[in-house]
């Protein structure tokens, strides 16, 4: 079992930052104040990064900045034996700059900064450098399943090495070039009204987003706020397969009668759906909702953070910000679909 002890998040929603991370991320001059989409993109409201030396900060790509900025409050908390970061695109903006250099200067003398900052594992490595953490350091670029695979690896590491602690998270940035490619490919809507109306569109595409959500995890239950009870990832284009796999997932991790008197047998108390306003993905989400008892409340969150490959990390963080329900513990199910083919289930048990 993977126990979550602390979390931080840099998201497009400044009002959602609370508790210990609010004070830890405060200070310095922030890089944005707008909550909500700007030109059709949900951009994060960046803090001032008071813990990062200015000379280091100026070189960082946005993704690296978000990852290190979110990590700083956590790496001060306690011993960390490894860093595991999921990212779909890493520092895509810097990668594109580097590719452009190759073309513009005919593969001649190239500035190294764009390359160093653009590679996906720059996020985890810069966190390691910033915190002097020389242990396990790994990056998962499984498109829309990077965060889930970071969690799976952390779970396996903890099984092999009980007593170890890991920093796990999902980090992605919106880059202008990549956004235009994805827009042209039909993954984003050309016009979007902010808020819950995202789910009212009957059209393809979602809204672009970005963010960094990090978690301090271990195999120790003491002082944990939640535990990851199950994770499953798979590829499919068939909504019936998705529903069948969800039934099996719940039977395996939340067997009927496991929570007598607290919630419906075999059903979570809450379902966080990754629905994103893309009508092509809706059948998958509907198929999952049909598996659950109709009384299970459904919470959607992509109108808060936008769509990006590691948005499920934001969902897990968000679930831990919700007011503590009664009675506790409470099981929360997450289902996310990335680009119609990648699926993930996460089952979380919240203790407080």
């Amino acid at each position: 079992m993977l126990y979550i002890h602390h979390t931080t998040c840099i998201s497009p929603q400044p009002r959602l930052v609370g508790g210990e991370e609010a004070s830890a991320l405060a200070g310095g001059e922030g890089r944005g104040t707008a909550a909500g989409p700007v030109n059709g993109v949900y951009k994060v409201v960046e803090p001032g990064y008071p813990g990062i030396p200015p000379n280091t900060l100026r070189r960082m790509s946005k993704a690296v900045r978000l990852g290190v900025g979110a990590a700083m409050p956590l790496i001060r908390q306690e011993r960390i034996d490894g860093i595991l970061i999921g990212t779909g695109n890493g520092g895509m903006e810097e990668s594109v700059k580097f590719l452009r250099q190759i073309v513009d200067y005919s593969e001649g003398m190239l500035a190294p900064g764009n390359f160093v900052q653009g590679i996906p594992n720059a996020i985890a490595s810069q966190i390691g450098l910033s915190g002097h953490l020389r242990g396990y350091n790994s990056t998962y670029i499984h498109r829309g399943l990077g965060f889930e695979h970071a969690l799976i690896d952390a779970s396996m590491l903890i099984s092999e090495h009980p007593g170890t602690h890991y920093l796990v998270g999902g980090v992605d940035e919106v880059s202008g070039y990549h956004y235009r490619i994805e827009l042209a490919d039909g993954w984003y809507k050309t016009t979007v009204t902010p808020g819950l109306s995202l789910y009212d569109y009957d059209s393809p595409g979602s809204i672009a987003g970005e963010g960094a959500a990090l978690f301090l995890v271990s195999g120790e239950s003491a002082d944990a706020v939640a535990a990851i009870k199950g994770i499953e990832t798979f590829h499919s284009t068939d909504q019936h397969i998705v529903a069948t796999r969800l039934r099996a997932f719940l039977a395996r991790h939340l067997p009927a009668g496991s929570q007598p008197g607290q919630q419906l047998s075999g059903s979570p108390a809450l379902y966080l759906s990754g629905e994103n306003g893309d009508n092509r993905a809706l059948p998958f989400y509907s198929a999952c909702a049909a598996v659950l008892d109709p009384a299970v409340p459904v919470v959607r969150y992509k109108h808060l953070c936008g769509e990006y490959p590691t948005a499920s990390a934001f969902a897990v963080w968000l679930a831990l910000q919700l007011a503590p329900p009664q009675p506790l513990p409470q099981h929360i199910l997450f289902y996310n679909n990335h680009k119609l083919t990648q699926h993930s289930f996460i089952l979380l048990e919240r203790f407080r």
Partner: protein
Amino acid sequence: METAQLKERLKAQIIEFLNLSSTTPADIADDQPLFGEGLGLDSIDSLELIVLLNREYGIVIKDPKEGRKVLVDVNTMVDYITQHRTK
């Protein structure tokens, strides 16, 4: 190009290449050391400056000892550019 103009242009290029977003050309004195206590640049920045000289002025610095003499401050860079530029 006048030396004063070249200095201003070079300062703007240094800011752009090194992403010194909170610095303006006026903040960089002609004789302010680029590295260490001065502008606070480091070895990675020196690579970026060598790329800058190559791209913008057609100057190739191959000898590290030569680089250490050139990348001292804006004055030394402008002197070297004036003598060796190919574009």
